[in-house]
């Protein structure tokens, strides 16, 4: 167990585990947290997992972890690691099972107050049009050639098939399509799991949430993002469903032998990896990108379903219900990016596992309208609590591999939450707060209770104080659909 005394305090919001802490560390670990959040973090095995991640070959700079960090498997959730391209390694466990799990935010100009009488209908339609639950089938059933096309094209596939607008694509990380996807490197089993699941939400912590913009903290940036105080917005949180899970399962299995072939010694078998320029590394990158594109298309189809629910609920009654995409971000992914390291710009593979890309102003990877503001950073809360829209900063480019936090971060185990919280009671409590709840399972709802998570406001205050993001707007939930 790593104690807080083992860490070096850099500022009130940054701590470091030096490379000398353990003999096999190749780089230090940099932690963004207040003392209070650090005490939560130190109560599980996440710091130990960050130290383990610091042993990967080819790492540069530091492993960076966010204040919403918690225990995962292999890598901690909330971790960011950069390996030198192309000789460094790629680690499937450093990206996670739910490849390109992410968040999409859509905004309307419909006042929440006016929409209140229709929120019950809207929640029911969202639940009906956005299938949820593990193994649940999606809204389209694809044959194999079409699935492979979707894995190559991502959101562009959705656009060609009438599920997306050009603006949706422009306002999606990577334009909704990561180049270099290779469906031939995705197993038949993964394709079987994905073929029927496109356009579905899944289970676990995935959700669709209708919120209202409770506060705008930066009016100019909020206007550019399309956020208006008092208006409805929609968040969609999900990923690559069974397909992504199977891709990760397959390559963690395959890489068990690869680490021996490349003489890589690791403290945890979940961290297995292969050099990016090796046949094994290339195969995984191709498959991982195919799964990432599947996830982009999945969130796009869910956005299409959400728009349908909004239209049916509001079109004959109110104005301003149309949903315009603010942004779509990945928080479980590996990306080849250029970053400044010791004064030199180098290409690295940034592994983000439970961390959001947070590119600052001027980045050519952002749509033109966001190049002055920095990237929208979407930080969902936990059903009853606020969610946040932040913007990326120059400091995030310098200090955190252009990354920021991805949510509140769990602090209570699922079994503890189930024992302490009764799903039906939670539903009633949320409904008393004016939040419509549609949940596939009441025990699943209890596992995701707000009290099972850290204080999202404290997490956001930390990344803002550390300078790796800035506040734009705060959202409050009105309706939640969960698997």
């Amino acid at each position: 167990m790593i104690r807080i005394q083992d860490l070096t305090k850099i500022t009130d919001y940054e701590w470091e585990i030096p490379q000398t802490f353990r003999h096999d560390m190749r780089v230090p670990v940099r932690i963004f947290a207040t003392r209070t959040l650090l005490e939560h973090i130190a109560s599980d095995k996440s710091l130990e997992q960050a130290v383990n991640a610091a042993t990967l070959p080819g790492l540069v700079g530091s492993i960076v972890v966010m204040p919403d960090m918690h225990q995962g498997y292999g890598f901690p959730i909330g971790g960011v690691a950069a390996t030198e391209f192309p000789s460094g390694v790629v680690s499937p466990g450093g990206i996670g099972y739910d490849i390109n799990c992410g968040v999409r935010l859509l905004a309307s100009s419909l006042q929440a107050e006016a929409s209140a009488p229709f929120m019950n209908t809207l929640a029911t339609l969202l639940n009906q049009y956005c299938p949820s639950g593990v193994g649940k089938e999606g809204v389209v059933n694809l044959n194999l050639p079409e699935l492979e096309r979707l894995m190559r094209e991502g959101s562009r596939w959705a656009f060609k098939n009438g599920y997306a607008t050009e603006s949706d694509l422009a306002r999606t990380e990577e334009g909704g399509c990561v180049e270099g996807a290779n469906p031939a490197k995705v197993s038949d089993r993964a394709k079987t799991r994905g073929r029927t699941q496109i356009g579905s939400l899944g289970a676990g912590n995935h959700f669709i949430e209708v919120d209202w913009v409770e506060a705008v903290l930066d009016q100019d940036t909020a206007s550019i993002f399309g956020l208006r105080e008092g208006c409805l917005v929609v968040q969609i949180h999900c990923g690559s469903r069974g397909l992504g899970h199977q891709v990760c399962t397959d390559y963690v299995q395959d890489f068990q032998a690869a680490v021996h072939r490349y003489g890589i010694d690791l403290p945890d078998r979940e961290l297995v990896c292969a050099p990016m320029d090796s046949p094994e590394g290339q195969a995984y990158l191709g498959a991982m990108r195919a799964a990432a594109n599947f996830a982009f298309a999945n969130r796009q189809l869910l956005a299409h379903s959400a728009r349908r629910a909004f239209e049916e609920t509001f079109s004959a009654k109110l104005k301003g219900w149309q949903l315009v995409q603010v942004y779509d971000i990945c928080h479980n992914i590996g990306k080849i990016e250029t970053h400044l390291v010791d004064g030199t710009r180098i290409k690295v593979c940034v592994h983000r596992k439970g961390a959001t890309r947070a590119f600052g102003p001027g980045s050519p990877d952002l749509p033109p309208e966001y190049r002055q503001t920095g990237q929208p950073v979407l930080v969902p809360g936990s059903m009853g609590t606020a969610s946040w829209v932040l913007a990326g900063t120059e400091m995030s480019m310098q200090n955190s591999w252009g990354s920021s936090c991805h949510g509140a971060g769990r602090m209570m185990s699922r079994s503890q939450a189930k024992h302490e919280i009764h799903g039906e009671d939670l539903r009633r409590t949320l409904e008393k707060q004016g939040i419509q709840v549609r949940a596939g399972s009441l025990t699943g709802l209890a596992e995701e209770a707000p009290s099972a998570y850290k204080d999202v406001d404290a997490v956001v205050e930390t990344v803002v104080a550390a300078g790796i993001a800035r506040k734009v707007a705060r959202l409050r939930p009105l309706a939640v659909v969960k698997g």
Partner: protein
Amino acid sequence: MVSKDSGYKEQFHTADWALHVWAASLPALFVAAARGMNNLSGAQTAQSPLVSRRFSAEAADNESLLVLFLSELVFVAEQEHLIFNKFNLKIQDSKLNVLMTGAPILSISKYIKAVTYHNLKIQKTETGFQVDIVFDV
């Protein structure tokens, strides 16, 4: 089914699920792990029709065999809505052969999404074998 000789117990994990599994023999350890996983998911199965299936795998070590075996059960539960709870299982020379019998799922609290290698190590004990397994949910 939990007894002194063989069984499973849920372990603390912040975000996912973890099991401590023990048994007198390696095959019994695999069976206990499968039953523990079924129990975590809260699956209830129909009385009939009973379904039998053979599964074989080969791997470099027993930990990999265990992940392959449990991953097969995850896949079948998700895709065919079947839970297997009776196993005639043999492990020899890093090869697994199992005849499993199960039934369609009537209800389930939560499907397991993946079986991880996180700190996975089958250990020999005085009374048999033990292992800790972390599942992605």
